[in-house]
């Protein structure tokens, strides 16, 4: 039986396939909407148990998004700056590291970046 251009099983696979992908992710959506609630409930209960005299329930999971955004941005800026300096240093190191004629033993393969008995390096010179 040909439905439109292709036979029915092709249509079945197409529609059913997409539907299952949807279901799978919907499942995950559902779970990840409930997980934080469960966690919050567990945490709150613990806090209640601990401070059972006063029952001070602090909602520690609810740091506002804005606070996070501010922290994230600050961190981002700080780290970006960090990165620039770092990459300069690394550039210089890389140049040194990669400079094969001096740094190589097996096809420019040395223990570069590792401690080295310097006197050994100069052996040929002293011979």
């Amino acid at each position: 039986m040909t439905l439109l251009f292709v036979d029915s099983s092709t249509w079945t696979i197409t529609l059913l396939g997409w539907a299952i992908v949807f279901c799978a992710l919907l499942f995950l959506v559902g779970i990840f909407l409930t997980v934080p609630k469960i966690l919050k409930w567990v945490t709150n209960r613990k806090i209640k148990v601990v401070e059972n005299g006063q029952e001070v329930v602090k909602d520690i999971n609810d740091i506002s998004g804005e606070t996070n955004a501010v922290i994230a941005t600050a961190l981002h800026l700080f780290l970006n700056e960090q990165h620039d300096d770092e990459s300069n240093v690394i550039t210089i190191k890389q140049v040194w590291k990669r400079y094969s004629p001096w740094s190589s033993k097996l096809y420019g393969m040395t223990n570069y970046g590792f401690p080295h008995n310097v006197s050994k390096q100069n052996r040929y010179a002293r011979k």
Partner: protein
Amino acid sequence: MRKFVTVYSVLALLFCLQIVFGTDVMAAVTESTGGLSAADGLTELWNFTGFANLHGSYSNLIMIAVGLFFIFLAVKYDYEPLLLIPIGTGILLGNIPFSEGYKIGIYEQGSVLNYLYFGVEQGIYPPLIFLGIGAMTDFSSLISNPKLMILGAAAQIGIFATFLGASAIGFTPQEAGAIGIIGGADGPTAIFLSSKLAPHLMGAIAIAAYSYMALVPVIQPPIMRLIIPKKERAIKMKPPRAVSKTEKIMFPLIALLLTTFISPSALPLLGMLFFGNLLKESGVTERLADTARNSLINIVTILLGVTVGASTQANVFLTTDSLKIFGLGALSFVVATAGGLLFARFLNVFVNKDNKINPLIGAAGVSAVPDSARVVQMEGLKTDPNNHLLMHAMAPNVSGVIGSAVAAGIMLSFLMK
């Protein structure tokens, strides 16, 4: 120096003459002599060179040009260089013309390239890449706003639409399934699926998938502007909530169990993806996570890229099928993007005014992590220079990876064997 240029010119001339007159002249010269005379030896050797093995056909040269173009794109425009440079070089290696029977070609049993290709053929490399990806990916934005995850499901319509299209133009169901996965915008998944369903098309499918992934910044923006009205493009979304460490550890475990129960055939991909993420988030296996996302993924990327590239040997690759696959691939990217965008608009119908999502992030559902999320950010900034959508776009972006792996598993269940 002048002398060298002269010598070089003479030599070049000699080689050019050979190309013009072909090997017949050479053969004639040597046929009369007995033993392996110098002329004989020269002929024999000549028959081994790439020049001789071109056989007057220029398909290999075309592929070499393609390989050089890939490398050019990567170096000049920084389009996915970690993929395009190994693949481009692989195309060169796979298309040097050679004599068969000397264990050189990637399809010859016992050649080095053939051994390295084993991990592609058997679908071993993709799960190892997913392990590294898992150990790199931060799922926080997805955990903090799980609703956005279904945008990653919506964009998978590209996969199924392409499956339909490929079936309609005459591919077998297995081939159509493997071609469809190009719409998943996910290289390792595409290689994994086509290694199981249609090994003979893998080269074309992988190259198409990676090419379009590299071209996401070119393909998506016009579609976004077409489908999403300017007003909706300006919607600002609420900053995501903080995600606790416990949630981050639970995510890979729950997601692993759930997705592989639904689609066990995707187990190698999803299992490794979430395993990698657990290594990262557990906080006690940092050294393993570090190796997974550095040495291991780099080694596998090098081997996968160069062998996938080399698998495009002209005689196997330059077919009308490959052309069709490229056409279908373009289509699937367009459909996937449109699917994500439209579903995002559709979702807004059910959401109250304060929680509206910016439909642009639907485009990130195709995965192609993180390029499509970046494209969303850029388009968002063009409408409102203060509207940063990147973090929000990451949620559909990573869920697109999960979605296309699930889809690959479903295709396998339906079509394998």
